[in-house]
């Protein structure tokens, strides 16, 4: 039975946007003395404790997020619907801790099965054989007839933003190794399409709004790197949001259409001096810093116009500008605690000097893995942060709270309440992004089409039926 009338969609301030991040984690079981163990087997043990309470390895959590095992045995965490960047960063960071919390019991189960070893979870984008996995960004946009034209205007931004929001990596080739801005750049094969695994597009156009489809569309971006540095994550999502606000106000961005996006994203990734030029459709040749500067200036010109000035907007624009400057001047010292590539390159360079080795030395590959290890005690990024070498924008308290509490200003609040209550009741239930359902003899379902609605009488009624049990 479907409960109640679906309420009319809320009227929402254009500056409010639903944001979400999906992270696929690298799963590494280090057990040099054991029989070979497949990633699938390790993932099964890792998620055993999840299956115990959730009856599935594909669950929604009390914080509204989704946790599951994705294609290729990657643990994946998708944040709940957030409508502020600080909320999103806290929910995203909470995901690192949530997957880490599974490790001890996973290792114990593997040991009981006769394989002693250590499970590492990496928030990165490639394994040592060059297989890639993603970090997907979701932005709710108002539906319009020309979505493809609307989104394609952003491709030059997505191609060039890696000079500020890339996670940085060592690229190893037949002619030695070099530093690159983005490990994900080499794994992009087209600008926009509806495919994901076979032919990775930068913007996926599959139309799954997880919301009222007459009003909304979801822009699903798969070209970004996973990032652990909070200021980088905020800049990655925040700069995109600001550009979307301009486009949604029917204003134009500068025409920076590229002649070939695939060539451009690779050329930019592999030149950390920022001097490489890419060809535009109109025949001009510009650098990534030129492209980013042009977009930044456009956004700046709209602050106090279609973009309301806030401290957060100022902070985003400030870091964006300093990031472009760092690349242009080849001096990362001004962003080396905030931008992930700069934080990482600093550590890699310092360690390389100490070892006196070349960039393709396996010890530096090992250091990269340590950097992305999500363990709070062992992971190098987390240790750098604990030692004050990385700038914070959310508190540990916020992150700990976000592990169990949903964002309170979106639909996630309803899902979180329902999951918490259903677990306490012991009743069978199913949940997805738009449904809450109590199973059993008298099944009841609530359809939540409005991602901005955080209060709903139908959910109150549903929870009352749980209390009445």
């Amino acid at each position, binding site marked *: 039975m479907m409960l109640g009338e679906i309420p009319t969609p809320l009227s929402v301030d254009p500056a409010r946007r639903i944001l979400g991040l999906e992270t696929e984690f690298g799963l590494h079981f280090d057990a040099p003395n054991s029989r070979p163990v497949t990633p699938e087997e390790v993932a099964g043990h890792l998620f055993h404790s999840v299956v115990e309470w959730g009856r599935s390895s594909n669950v929604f959590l009390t914080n509204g997020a989704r946790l599951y095992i994705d*294609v*290729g045995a990657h643990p994946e965490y998708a944040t709940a619907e957030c409508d502020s960047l600080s909320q999103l960063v806290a929910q995203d960071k909470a995901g690192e801790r949530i997957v880490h919390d599974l490790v001890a019991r996973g290792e114990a189960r593997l040991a009981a099965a006769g394989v002693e070893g250590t499970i590492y979870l990496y928030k990165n984008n490639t394994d040592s054989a060059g*297989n890639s996995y*993603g970090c997907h960004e979701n932005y709710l946009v108002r539906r319009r007839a020309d979505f493809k034209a609307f989104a394609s205007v952003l491709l030059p931004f997505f191609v060039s933003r890696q000079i500020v929001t890339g996670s940085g990596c060592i690229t190893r080739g037949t002619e030695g190794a070099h530093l690159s801005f983005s490990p994900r750049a080499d794994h992009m094969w087209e600008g926009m399409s509806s495919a994901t695994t076979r032919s990775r597009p930068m913007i996926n156009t599959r139309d799954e709004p997880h919301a009222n489809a007459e009003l909304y569309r979801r822009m699903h971006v798969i070209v970004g790197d996973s990032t652990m540095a909070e200021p980088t994550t905020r800049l990655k999502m925040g700069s995109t949001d600001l550009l979307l606000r301009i486009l949604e106000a029917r204003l134009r961005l500068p025409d920076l259409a590229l002649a070939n996006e695939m060539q451009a994203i690779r050329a930019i990734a592999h030149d950390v001096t920022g001097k490489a030029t890419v060809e535009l459709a109109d025949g001009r040749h510009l650098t990534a810093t030129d492209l980013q500067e042009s977009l930044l200036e456009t956004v700046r010109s709209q602050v106090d116009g279609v973009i309301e000035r806030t401290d957060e907007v100022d902070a985003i624009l400030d870091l964006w500008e300093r990031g472009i400057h760092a690349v242009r001047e080849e001096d990362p010292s001004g962003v080396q605690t905030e931008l992930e590539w700069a934080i990482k390159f600093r550590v890699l360079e310092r360690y390389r000097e100490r070892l006196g080795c070349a960039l393709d030395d396996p010890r530096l590959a090992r250091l990269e893995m340590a950097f992305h290890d999500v363990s709070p005690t062992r992971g190098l990024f987390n240790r750098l942060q604990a030692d004050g070498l990385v700038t914070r924008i959310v508190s540990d308290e916020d992150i700990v709270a976000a592990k169990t509490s949903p964002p309170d200003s979106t639909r996630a609040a309803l899902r979180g309440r329902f999951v918490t209550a259903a677990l306490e009741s012991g009743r069978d239930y199913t949940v997805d992004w738009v449904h809450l359902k109590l199973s059993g003899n008298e099944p009841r379902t609530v359809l939540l089409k409005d991602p901005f609605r955080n209060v709903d009488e139908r959910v109150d009624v549903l929870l009352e039926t749980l209390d009445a049990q």
Partner: protein
Amino acid sequence: MPQTTSSTSPFEDDAPAPDAPVAPAAQSSTDALDSLLDEIDDTIQTNATQFVRSFVQKGGQ
């Protein structure tokens, strides 16, 4: 061209140039990084090649 006057002994010209001054905050940040690298050095160096090669996982999306 005016002579540059110097009160220091001419021999000082032979002394190595002092390092460019480092701001205290930058120095303490570098010290913190170095001591962290000291702490993880053993872990990183032990069987690095084998450790790295053992991380192979088919891609996701």
